[in-house]
């Protein structure tokens, strides 16, 4: 089974992330970047599927030069090859534009049996690219999988909701996005780190994909960040005095936040 995993290079969430003052896009310069942690689950799931059978895992990313680090991490984990789409014109692209570039890249890679995505990126956290990508590729989409199995030419996933878990089936080829409950991503071993040095990474531009620069980038995106403000300091928590009803008030609070 050949699997394509879409991954994103994001600013490290441990650092103080911010936006560029000039064009209000994500600041990717002043903060170290890394492979989005939520995408590691998709890479891990792909590796497990291929290791249990046969086939190849290709990771694909859209991003600036430094995004090569994200694909490198996936290669160190065990992916076979990588494609990095890098083009100045992509800067500032929103989800629809990004999904267009990813779709064209996946078509050029070939026809994978399965496209895997993470739940969301840890910077944009929109969670919409998987659905858009499936639509552009004309693939069935089964999203937010907490469990994934492949039997014959069908995939079966479990999707956990607030009150129920659904089991959903789709036929291959298809697109699946996975949650952080699905597995425990491996850390690259020394052998993986060394082997990754020799794995092929192709770098493509928009021209390689036949995508017109007028379809992507900040100026051609449907959505734009107009302004941003620093998050206000955290407000003081609510103190509930126990006047005999402390227990039920606590239960009400937890229920209102859907903790219980």
């Amino acid at each position: 089974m050949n699997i394509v995993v879409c991954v994103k290079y994001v600013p490290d969430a441990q650092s103080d992330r911010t936006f560029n003052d000039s064009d209000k896009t994500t600041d990717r310069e002043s903060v170290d970047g890394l492979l989005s942690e939520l995408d590691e689950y998709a890479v891990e799931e792909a590796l497990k599927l291929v290791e249990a059978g046969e086939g190849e895992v290709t990771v694909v990313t859209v991003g600036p030069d430094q995004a090569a680090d994200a694909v490198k991490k996936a290669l160190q984990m065990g992916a076979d090859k990588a494609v990095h789409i890098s083009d100045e014109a992509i800067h500032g692209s929103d989800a629809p534009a990004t999904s267009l570039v990813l779709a064209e890249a996946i078509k050029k890679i070939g026809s994978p049996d399965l496209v895997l995505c993470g739940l969301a990126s840890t910077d944009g956290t929109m969670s919409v690219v998987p659905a858009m990508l499936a639509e552009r590729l004309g693939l069935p989409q089964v999203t937010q999988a907490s469990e994934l199995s492949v039997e014959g030419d069908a995939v079966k996933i479990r999707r956990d909701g607030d009150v129920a878990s659904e089991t959903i089936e789709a036929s291959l080829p298809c697109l699946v996005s996975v949650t952080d409950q699905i597995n425990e991503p491996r850390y690259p071993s020394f052998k993986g780190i060394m082997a990754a040095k020799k794995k092929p990474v192709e770098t493509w531009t928009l021209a390689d994909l036949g995508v017109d620069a007028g379809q992507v980038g900040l100026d051609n995106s449907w959505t734009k960040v107009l302004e941003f403000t620093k998050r206000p300091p955290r407000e003081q928590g609510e103190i509930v005095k126990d006047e005999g009803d402390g227990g039920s008030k606590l239960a009400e609070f937890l229920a209102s936040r859907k903790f219980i």
Partner: protein
Amino acid sequence: MSTAGPLPPFDRNDPIGIDDVLSAEEKAIRGAVRNLCETKVQPHIADWFESGVIDDPRALMKEFGGLGLLGMHLEGYGCAGMSAVDYGLACLELEACDSGIRSMVSVQGSLAMFAIWRWGTEEQKQEWLPGMAAGDRIGCFGLTEPDHGSDPGSMRTRAKKDGTDWVLNGRKMWITNGTIADVAVVWAQTDEGIRGFVVPTDTPGFSAPEIKHKMSLRASVTSELVLDDVRLPEEAAFPEVRGLKGPLSCLNEARYGIVWGAMGAARSSFDAALQYTMEREQFGKPIAGFQLTQKKLADMSLELIKGELLALHIGRRKDNGTCRPEHVSYGKLNNVREAIEICRTARTMLGANGISLEFPVIRHANNLESVLTYEGTVEMHTLVVGQALTGEAAFR
């Protein structure tokens, strides 16, 4: 002078930017070891130290083997074949966790595995190295004796020929991993000088009682090796090497790891002191805001940087084949001495909290008391440097 763009921000974790001279792979290897330590060791280490027992050392060794840590700088036989700098970075991260844990890995890879890899027969290598690299089999290294430390040439453990067999008698002391080992590399006097033997620990006459009542390296198995008419076939001996060159070549490998490792213990203590003094308030402000505290922090940071640069420089020389044993002595002498000073200073900055196992500093300081004298005491390394500088040997 070029002025290209704004200056990078000051990074408290890498004040002068030593990371600039590490490759992406080197940083990835460091990250992999750090991650393993954070998940498998860090949550338990204070308890292991306090109880003097590592919960499941075999399982831990398997974790280390799975990552590729064991004998990582050796080629072939299931070893990862990494560089000396890679190995050093790994030692630093392990010892930032605990010197005992770094010792466990050092002894397995740099002493037991290196000895077999460097001096063993092809059969010995095939028999032991792949399992040891995977962490399935544990090794120890017996050189030091109850009465013979800095002067190993006077050792009393003896191997005598009996027909084609060898019969070993004697005692070894302060042997890391001894009690849990599957194989012991034992050095003994023979009629042809000192020779090395690969001793399976289930050989009759071999026992390895654990040494208790330690106040240092408590999260580490330390043992005595008792050899009581241990009968071995001729093939158990290392075929060629004679004299102290055999064991000393191995010690030089392990000492190299200590040059880096000690800086890990120091870094961990420095980090704890920095964080603590920035949070702890006395007389209405964080104690990090007082000049005496800042002097301590600045001095600690300087020595940490100098030690790391020294380790890196010696590592690069080791990788290009120009590292002499004296270089390792310079590194071990300086870095352990400065590391223990950093840990002791950190301990003062935490006040009473400095003696609690809730913080790593007293554990590191106590551990380094062992590191200060094992694998060559301060005095011995001082004499090595003295001899290198003057041409005069002052050992005896």
